[in-house]
């Protein structure tokens, strides 16, 4: 699924990669809030394009484009749905209808865009460190990191299991829908049993390394906010303030599509 490709972390470094994940997350929240405030095309387009410098600075253009491409289907669905729904209920007509539907689709795209930037530039261990320092209980952070750590292992194992069953004559591509689903049982069961066994072994190893010894767990690494982080916080805050200001006092005077076309 190419939309997921766009969210996977890459081992690249850039100034964006080095930023504190908590700050990056704040930025994502801000873009989310500002996107939700407006249903006009113009501010949303601004919000979309304003994030592009971040993508360029992070050097993740190709993966980011892939995530957008993966989102195209949903974006189209949102556009069509809004268009048809509002057309039937006559809430908007003419160019206002088009603008509204486009805006809703664009809003979703902006969200995908900012989340994608976040995940593309934040390594899982960086993220888990941020979670720990944000006082999320360690059990959750650990579950998250361990899950990420074992994704490639499980993927490989699934492949091996498929190979083993294919070598016993299992044909995964043949048969009607029901038969095909049933054919996955010889793959799912070993996978699940293996996952359970693995969890048991992991638990043994964890216990053997003093899991639970101290209520106050320390950490080898620590996240320290640097100049870049403060800069991003400031930029995000400015965005938020400007966005809210325009929303509260100048909402009506935002040029709409209808305006621009009738002139």
């Amino acid at each position: 699924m190419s939309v997921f490709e766009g969210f996977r972390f890459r081992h690249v470094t850039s100034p964006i990669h080095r930023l504190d994940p908590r700050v990056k997350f704040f930025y994502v929240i801000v873009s989310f809030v500002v996107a939700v405030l407006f249903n006009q095309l113009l501010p949303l387009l601004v919000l979309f394009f304003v994030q592009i410098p971040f993508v360029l600075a992070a050097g993740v253009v190709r993966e980011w484009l892939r995530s957008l491409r993966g989102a195209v289907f949903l974006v189209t669905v949102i556009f069509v749905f809004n268009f048809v729904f509002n057309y039937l209920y006559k809430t908007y007509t003419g160019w206002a209808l088009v603008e509204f539907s486009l805006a809703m689709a664009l809003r979703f795209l902006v969200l995908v865009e900012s989340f994608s930037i976040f995940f593309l530039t934040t390594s899982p261990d960086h993220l888990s460190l941020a979670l720990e320092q944000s006082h999320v209980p360690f059990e959750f952070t650990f579950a998250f990191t361990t899950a990420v750590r074992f994704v490639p292992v499980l993927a490989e194992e699934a492949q091996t299991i498929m190979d083993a069953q294919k070598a016993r004559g299992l044909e995964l591509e043949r048969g009607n829908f029901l038969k095909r689903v049933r054919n996955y049982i010889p793959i799912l069961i070993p996978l699940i049993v293996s996952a359970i066994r693995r969890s048991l072994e992991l638990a043994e190893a964890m216990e053997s390394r003093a899991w639970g010894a101290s209520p106050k767990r320390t950490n080898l690494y620590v996240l320290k906010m640097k100049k870049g982080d403060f800069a991003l916080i400031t930029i995000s805050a400015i965005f938020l303030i400007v966005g809210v200001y325009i929303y509260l006092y100048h909402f009506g005077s935002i040029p709409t599509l209808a305006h621009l076309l009738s002139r």
Partner: protein
Amino acid sequence: MIEVKDVYFTYLSGVQALKGVSLAIRNGEFVAIMGQNGAGKTTLVKQFNGLLKPTKGSVLIDGVNTRDISVARLARKVGFVFQNPDHQLFSETVEEEIAFALKNFGFKENIIKRRVSWALNLLGLTEYRQASPFMLSGGERKRVALASVLAWNPKIIILDEPTIGQDHQQKENLRQFIVQLNAQGKTVVIVTHDVEFVAECSPRVVLMADGQIVADGDAKRILTDPNITLKASIVMPQITQIFYGLADLGLPTDVIDVSEARKVLLDYWEEAKAKH
């Protein structure tokens, strides 16, 4: 007959695991594919049952190109026993587990019954017929996996690292079992890095290193050649190591087996005594 013709193979991740491998295994042979972890052994044998198809070159099983036939159909001839039995066990009973492949291959119900009983008996699992495979011990699960492959009586049997985690007695049983299979005319290919086990079986050895075959021939000749073993980063059998330490006394260095070692040393001893 397995023919590997100048095969190259690159995984999707970009790793080139086979770099021009050519090999021919005749019917009824017993071959050990050896080498360090990562040398390409498993990648090579997965070409034999079509799980992997060459990036370049071709693999022919009894004259049929593996690219022209499905894995399921090839599996009828080429049985593959995976390293970890837990990667295939999924049925409610051992009986069902063994019958699985037979059902897939379209065997008739009465034949399936017969074959299952035969396989259970062959591997000493009859008492576990109705048992859940998950409840059995590690060694028993390995036997169930083996039984489920032998049940359909493939001509060629591939065993991937069959000695891992086995104790001495289990390895001895396995060795005798392989000899038995081979005596019945089956082609047996084992992938292993267990030098001592190979020294005891003395099969034909195909030694791999870094995606290529660096030696192919008699176990004795290959495992006692320090140039070859160094190149493939494998350890020589213990007995051979002992004899290399005594090479300057005029003793032969191509000994891999304990019984032979005893005989050689006794002969040397007798000769030395006679000279005095």
